């Protein structure tokens, strides 16, 4: 009797799991997503260093292996989603801690912070997608690529908030200026080479100019959003 009940329960559980898997696979291709998480410790360390100090890096091209881009383990320039995800979660927890230090903490505020940041990221990715579509840019940038590049700003946000907590308001503005300029340089250099796919050499020059404006616009947007999402934490 007990075994029959257990078998029934486990069959219902597996049926539910199959249903969830099917729905998930309709929206998100797990294999493509796995490419962005194929990272190792050396890559993450070097990429974080690059995000803070990108000025000495020479070669920004994403390397290909017979038309398939190399995974992040083997190519420093490939975007990944591990760093943005971890940085986002760390930012939310750090915001909770900063508000706790200012005695303004409650669990609802944590959810508010998280959803605000998430909404801004979604808006930015949608705006970039719209811009790429309107400019009829042929590029290899999928939604996940754009998500990765717009998620790199959370690293800068964390550094700014940490310096603000440790060294006060002046430290916050110095760190904000440094990380904003580093991030702008990083985004401009990466997207300029990534927006051009390996076979097309740019097409008409007006299209190239539109791509450049798009990249510069995306880069200029970063400091604004970093400031907007962090200044209330370092009062």
């Amino acid at each position, binding site marked *: *009797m*007990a*075994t029959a009940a257990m078998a029934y329960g486990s069959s219902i559980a597996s049926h539910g799991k199959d249903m969830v898997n099917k729905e998930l696979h309709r929206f998100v291709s*797990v294999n493509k*997503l*796995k490419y962005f*998480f*194929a*990272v*190792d*410790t*050396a890559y*993450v360390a070097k990429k974080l260093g690059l995000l803070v100090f990108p000025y000495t890096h020479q070669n920004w091209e994403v390397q290909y292996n017979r038309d398939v881009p190399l995974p992040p383990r083997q190519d420093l320039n490939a975007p990944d989603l*591990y760093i943005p*995800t*971890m940085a986002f*979660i*760390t930012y939310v*927890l750090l915001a909770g*801690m900063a508000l*706790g230090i200012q005695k303004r903490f409650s669990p609802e505020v944590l959810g508010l912070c998280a959803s605000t940041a998430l909404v801004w990221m979604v808006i930015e990715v949608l705006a970039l997608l719209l811009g790429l579509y309107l400019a009829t840019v042929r590029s290899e940038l999928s939604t996940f690529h754009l998500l990765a590049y717009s998620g790199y700003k959370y690293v800068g946000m964390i550094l700014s908030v940490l310096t603000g907590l440790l060294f006060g308001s002046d430290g916050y503005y110095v760190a904000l200026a440094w990380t904003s300029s580093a991030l702008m340089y990083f985004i401009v250099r990466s997207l300029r080479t990534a927006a051009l796919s390996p076979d097309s050499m740019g097409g008409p020059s007006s299209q190239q100019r539109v791509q450049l404006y798009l990249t510069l616009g995306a880069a200029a947007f970063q400091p604004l959003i970093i400031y907007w999402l962090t200044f209330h934490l370092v009062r």
Partner: protein
Amino acid sequence: MTSPNNPMIMEEVEDPIANSTEVFKIAASRQYAGYDYSQQGRFVPPDMMQPQQPYTGQIFQPTQAYTPAAPQPFYGNSFEDEPPLLEELGINFDHIWQKTLTVLHPLKEVDGSIMNETDLAGPMIFCLAFGATLLLAGKIQFGYVYGISAIGCLGMFCLLNLMSMTGVSFGCVASVLGYCLLPMILLSSFAVIFSLQGMLGIILTAGIIGWCSFSASKIFISALAMERQQLLVAYPCALLYGVFALISVF
């Protein structure tokens, strides 16, 4: 599923269980004169693609009845024939103790097969013990512990499935994270006596978080054969245990 030339030969093999029953049916219908059913080893027709998970021929022996994975004695109607309660529930105190020792010695090598049987009884005990020590300190926060552990397990499950070559089941993730909660119980029982908000408390908290996440990542790495990713797995574990530590400190 069968090629047009020879209906007996399977082209693509995906699911070994369904495939094995399918092949069993096909094999049973073969009219081989001298086919020996008692042949052991892999049943692979010569021009079939090699399946990803080769299966042995044991299931095709009609003399051997199919037994379930965990053989259980036949439950007679009499009361004395029933197995003891703990064995029926699958709680094995000896295994729980062994796994606890593995967590408590973070520098000892661990083999990957330790977490093959996902048992949630040990983690349940540890969660309840953690809530009990928090209760002793005056914080009635079972709900937070439960919610955070559920969200954390779900997040770790998604992350590990994306990062590793082989997948991982949710029970395995929950089991490992639950076992590595043990040092956190030490921290919260320490918080009953002394307040943790001084410098010593911060150092102790950081040390215990490091210990928990180090042993959790060590078990995950060896169980999933992920190379050079230990720190990457340890960081989200550290975030999760950091939230638990926040509960016990503040």
